[in-house]
């Protein structure tokens, strides 16, 4: 299926340091797939590479989405293909308001080659309506849209803004990078509800997390375990519970035993 995200033998490094050592992973379109792993296992690197972060060097392998090897595309093109990275640490851009940023992002998605961007741009009243509805669904204050992007935002505000962007851009595959980090329980509920409203046949999700906690709110159909830059275990939701109970050392010991 074209909406499957297929990662084949992906190897990547930052500087001289190898971080991904042959990742093989398929996230089926329209499913929720969790990748769990201890700190330093390469989970966030994987998320960033899928989105096209320029600081990493891919030294081998492929990533396929919508029948394209997306490693040939820049980050903006990947976004337009339907991929969305919900950042672990959303970046502040002073002087750029949330509303202007969202409108620019929407219009970039609506732009078509060879067409005047003015013709494809979303009309302002339609944009306002979309924004208002999205903000209400995430229990966000109206004044939020006028604030500068992520500047002085609390952890909860940043993550809500990530989900608001996801709501407006309607990706077909969302990559959630440690979305629960820095969230209290109320914010976690609002964020998870936002993801659950979107997840379904139209949007698959790759949920990256250290802890099982998030998976109580966003329930995966599949769980993969990452360690030392590789996927080392795959299973259903029960695998997450097992990890919660026994910790990651159990997997590590099993791997050492098998080697």
């Amino acid at each position, binding site marked *: 299926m074209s909406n499957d995200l297929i990662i084949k033998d992906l190897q990547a490094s930052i500087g001289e340091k190898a971080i991904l050592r042959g990742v093989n992973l398929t996230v089926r379109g329209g499913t929720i797939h969790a990748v769990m792993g201890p700190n330093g296992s390469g989970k966030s690197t994987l998320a960033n590479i899928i*989105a*096209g*972060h*320029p*600081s990493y060097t891919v030294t081998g392998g492929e990533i396929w989405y919508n029948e394209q090897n997306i490693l040939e595309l*820049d*980050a*903006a093109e*990947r*976004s*337009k293909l339907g991929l*969305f*990275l919900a*950042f672990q640490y*959303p*970046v*502040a*851009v*002073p*002087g*750029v308001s949330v509303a*202007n*940023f969202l409108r*620019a*992002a929407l219009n*970039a*998605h609506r732009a078509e080659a060879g067409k005047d961007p003015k013709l494809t741009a979303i009309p302002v009243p339609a944009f306002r309506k979309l924004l208002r509805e999205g903000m209400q669904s995430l229990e966000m204050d109206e004044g939020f849209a006028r604030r*500068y992007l992520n500047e002085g935002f609390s952890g909860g505000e940043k993550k809500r803004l990530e989900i608001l*962007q996801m709501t407006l*851009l309607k990706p077909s595959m969302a990559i959630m990078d440690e979305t629960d980090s820095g969230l209290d329980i109320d914010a976690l509920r609002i964020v998870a509800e936002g993801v659950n409203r979107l997840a379904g046949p139209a949007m698959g999700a790759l949920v990256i997390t250290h802890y099982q906690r998030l998976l109580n709110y966003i329930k995966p159909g599949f769980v993969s375990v990452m360690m030392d830059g590789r996927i080392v275990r795959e299973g259903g939701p029960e695998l997450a519970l097992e990890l919660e109970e026994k910790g990651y050392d159990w997997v590590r010991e099993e791997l050492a035993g098998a080697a």
Partner: protein
Amino acid sequence: MTNLTLRETTAEVIVARAQAAGEPGWLAERRRDAWTFFAQAGPPEWRRTDLSGLLPDELGPTDTTAVELMWDPALAAQGVIFKPIRQALDSHEGLLRKCLDTAVAPLTHKFSALRAALWHDGVFLFVPRNVAADTPLRVRYGLSAGERTTFPRTLVITEANSSVTLVEEFTSADQTAVALAAPISEIFAGPGSNVRFSSVQHWGANVYHLGGQQLILEHDANAEWTSIALGGKVQHIEAETTLQGNGSRVNWLGATFANHDQVLVMAPWLRHVGHSAESFMQFKTVVNDTSYSVFDGMIKIEHESAATSTRLEEHALHLSPNARNDSIPSLKIETNSVLKGGHASTSGDLDDEQLFYMQARGIPKDEARRMIVMGFFSPALDTLPIEALRTELETIIEGKI
């Protein structure tokens, strides 16, 4: 007489010109004194401003100054006066005699003297006591085709508890030959008055802009000053706000964008004299290509002041490794009574994480760069009171990214 170069001009010529134009005797004398100073002074000791491409002696003093005044004439009914300063020489001679050249000192260096000797026209803005001029006034100084020099001047006087918004603009087409613009801006803000002043320099190519500006705040006067520098070949602006009166306040924002081989030097000073006065200055600078910009900002807290609150910031953004920005903020304190004082400066390249974040939402890289730069300048741009001017400047800024 009008087509003489500066080399061929003499004090006698200056005086004869003033008399022929029907100017009062005191002005002819001031011009003569300023010219004498100019003729004797060596080049100014500006270490960072390269004037080697400017040969002022070869330029001619012109007796035209392109001045365009735009305002809502309904303000005249409230008593606001907004007119070419030549006309004010007739209607307000006493006031001009009292004020001209008292804020920006004429005999400081060669070019301050040249400005005072040769100024030809400009604008006079007067706002009477208790009058709130609600709509912005705008003066646009230009360079006519083939003109090689222009010496305009702005004089603003606001009486007690009045308020006004003025935009002063320097603009022209690209010049084929080197041209010199040497303007003077003097603003006297009366007690409790509110002054919003935007000074926007966006000359075309090849213009040297050597400007002097001074804003003097009487007690409880409040000013919002925005300084925008985009155009010309070389700019050297000495600007100062004097917080003369107790309880006076200024919020001073700047945006400078240099590209190609431009050299844009800005020396904004804050001078605290009154008690319990507050000042904040924040200048943003972007440099691209092989350009060079200088921020030579200073806070001077005078002996007689007390309970001063002040802060000065400069932030620079480099779009090219070959561009340079020198930030030289300084603080001179001559009293023990300072409530708050500080300065900060930062400098960096375009942030890759910001670019990636925006690109990850589908925004193309060029658009993301444009948005980041525009966001960087937004504190100053947001203060511009005329939407069409803001749009025009954004187009110029986009062209420089």
